[in-house]
């Protein structure tokens, strides 16, 4: 067994875990516990995946259960559908975000719809793991944030972890889910570390719940995946300027946890959605619309979006201008009409 697989055996309490290691452990545990689980895709066998997420699994579980496929994303998802129709639980890997597009028809026309088409008779418990997003100096086609393509498709669950321990939790739940799950892995956080809590290991938070990662009172920062850490950093920085920011980790992009998010925004009265994906028709547009529908009378300012520009993902030397940064989030916080509210308070007083 190589470094990654050794590094994080079991997400043990008190141990430091990377997101890559947590995902590897999640796959390993799922394969151990359920014989119907299979892992396949491009380079996931002998090599252990280009990001080494499946490192050591083929050696441990054999090539019938963990294997390399011919190079065709549509082929991978299409055959996974047939396998699930025959009682297996495939967990497949798309090597990079943009390389999943050849599988789009299988995902949208069949994976998402077969349950509906057959009135619930055909269930497809399939997980499609997709490393997504930028921040790693990747060249073209390796950095897309493709979440909105999937969240716009009824029948799919779309989840994305923001922390290493949650990567384990969400992956285990995705594999157990009776619904197909698009599992988006923020590749720039693969090597971020987290020390697993000393008390009782990790909490298996439900797959469809958002979590408050940092409590605050003045503004709610709503983030997910790769942008979560940026939002948390921005919240720390805002504290120095006297603004108390609450940070919500959405985890489940579809379905959306209205309850947790609106409860927070009703308390703080201000909200900013942060994501890497382009702004126009991006995921943040849906969040902003839902907040204006459900929290209008609680809002002190318009819901703002800190998002990627409406451009094709830039080349490595330009990506720093594109990705939401701590400063950009702080600027957005500044624009939340604090003075105007203060003026209103004065008039009222």
């Amino acid at each position, binding site marked *: 067994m190589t470094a990654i697989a050794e590094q994080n055996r079991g997400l043990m309490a008190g141990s430091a875990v990377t997101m890559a290691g947590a995902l590897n452990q999640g796959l390993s545990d799922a394969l151990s516990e359920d014989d119907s689980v*299979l892992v396949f895709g491009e380079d996931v066998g002998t090599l252990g995946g280009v990001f080494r997420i499946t490192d050591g699994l083929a050696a441990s579980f054999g090539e*019938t259960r963990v294997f390399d*496929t*011919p190079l*065709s994303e*549509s*082929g991978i*998802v*299409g*055959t*996974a*559908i*047939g*396998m*699930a*129709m*025959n*009682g*297996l639980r495939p967990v497949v890997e798309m090597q990079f975000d943009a390389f999943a597009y*050849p599988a789009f*028809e*299988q995902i949208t*026309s*069949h994976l998402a*719809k*077969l*349950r*509906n*088409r*057959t*009135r*619930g*008779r*055909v*269930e497809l418990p399939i997980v499609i793991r997709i490393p997504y997003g930028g921040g790693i100096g990747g060249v073209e086609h390796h950095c897309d944030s493709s979440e909105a393509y999937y969240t716009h498709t*009824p*029948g799919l*669950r779309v989840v994305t972890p923001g922390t290493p321990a949650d990567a384990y939790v969400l992956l285990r739940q995705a594999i157990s*889910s*009776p*619904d197909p799950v698009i599992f988006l892995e923020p590749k720039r956080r693969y090597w971020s570390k987290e020390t697993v809590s000393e008390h009782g290991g990790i909490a298996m938070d439900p797959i*469809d719940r958002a979590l408050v990662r940092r409590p605050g009172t003045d503004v709610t920062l709503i983030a997910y995946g790769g942008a979560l850490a940026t939002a948390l950093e921005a919240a720390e920085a805002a504290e120095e300027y006297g603004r108390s920011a609450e940070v919500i980790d959405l985890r489940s992009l579809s*379905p*959306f946890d*209205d*309850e947790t998010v609106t409860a927070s925004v009703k308390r703080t009265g201000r909200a900013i959605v942060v994501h890497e994906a382009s702004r126009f028709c991006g995921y943040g547009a849906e969040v902003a619309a839902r907040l204006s529908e459900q929290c209008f009378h609680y809002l002190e300012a318009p819901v703002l979006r800190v998002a990627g520009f409406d451009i094709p993902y830039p080349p490595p030397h330009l990506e720093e201008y594109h990705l939401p940064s701590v400063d950009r989030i702080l600027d957005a916080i500044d624009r939340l009409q604090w003075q105007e509210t203060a003026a209103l308070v004065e008039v009222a007083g």
Partner: protein
Amino acid sequence: MVTIPMTPELLPAANPVTLLDPAGRAVPGDGPGLPGDDVLATLYRMMVLGRRFDTQATALTKQGRLAVYPSARGQEACQIGAVLALRPQDWLFPTYRDSMAVTARGVDPVQVLTLLRGDWHSGYDPYQHRVAPQCTPLATNALHAVGLARAAAIKGEDTVALVMLGDGATSEGDTHAALNFAAVWKSPVVFFIQNNGYAISVPLAKQTAAPSLAHKGIGYGIPATVVDGNDAAAVYAVVRRAVTAAAAGTGPVLIEALTYRMEAHTNADDATRYRSAGEVAGWLARDPVTRLREHLRGRGLLDEAAIAATDAEAEAQAAALRQRMTTDTRHDPDDLFRYVYAEPTPELRRQQRELAAELGRSPGGEG
């Protein structure tokens, strides 16, 4: 020096496998033998029933009882021959043009027509007769067949998956992927291409430059056969041989059946815009039902009384179908939300209540 293996055994023979000529006379050859008398009799009866089902379905579009119907008239030998060659434990992956094949597998015709009637996207339980939902996007079902067959092999089940494709579908990427995956995995799959000459209006010559569609097999390492697709005996024999081979673990088989779509693409299409009456008439002389009937009659296996009895059975079946299809279906708006996820999400429950309020009824109940 690398030696590239010559694999002529993967190529189709120079002539399509034919067991009966258009006049119904047995053709001697070194291919598979003529199926037994019982099989031939069943093929004939099922083709007569299948054709009557098909013409009834087309008639139902004219009465507004079906939204649309893609006919398989002229392709009865393919529809029935391929399905009868399957074993109970095998799976069929049909397309939208294969309603006749699905009924031949035992699925209730009203359930088959649920899709085209507009009541639901599929009306039958795929697990009951091992028939996947009829697939509308082209060639995507080929990958499902490969996956199902691979899962069967992993689980040690003796199951073969037969996927139906049209000539147009062979241009889609998923056909390529499915042939390739099945070959690499040696999955028990039969790729059954009904080459009916047209993809809606586009003739085969604009679809491919391959010498035959069966020639595509060699590129994947898959043995391929061309069969006379209007000869039910030959289709049955060739598919049966392929199922046996696939079940034995030798890997997938590709079959190209040469046939002709006698009707337009659907009732909404106008075939006179792209093909001549003479061409259609030429294929009438190769009619698959007449061919087998003449063969059976010539051998004394079918008399006028038996022919009349089968025709009467087909009429009765069509009448029953007509009667059942003229009953209006009750539609439940709550069904819209029921099968999207294993459990409706809170948002779907909200939307269900919205619709119920709009309709002045309580969700899940009567208005």
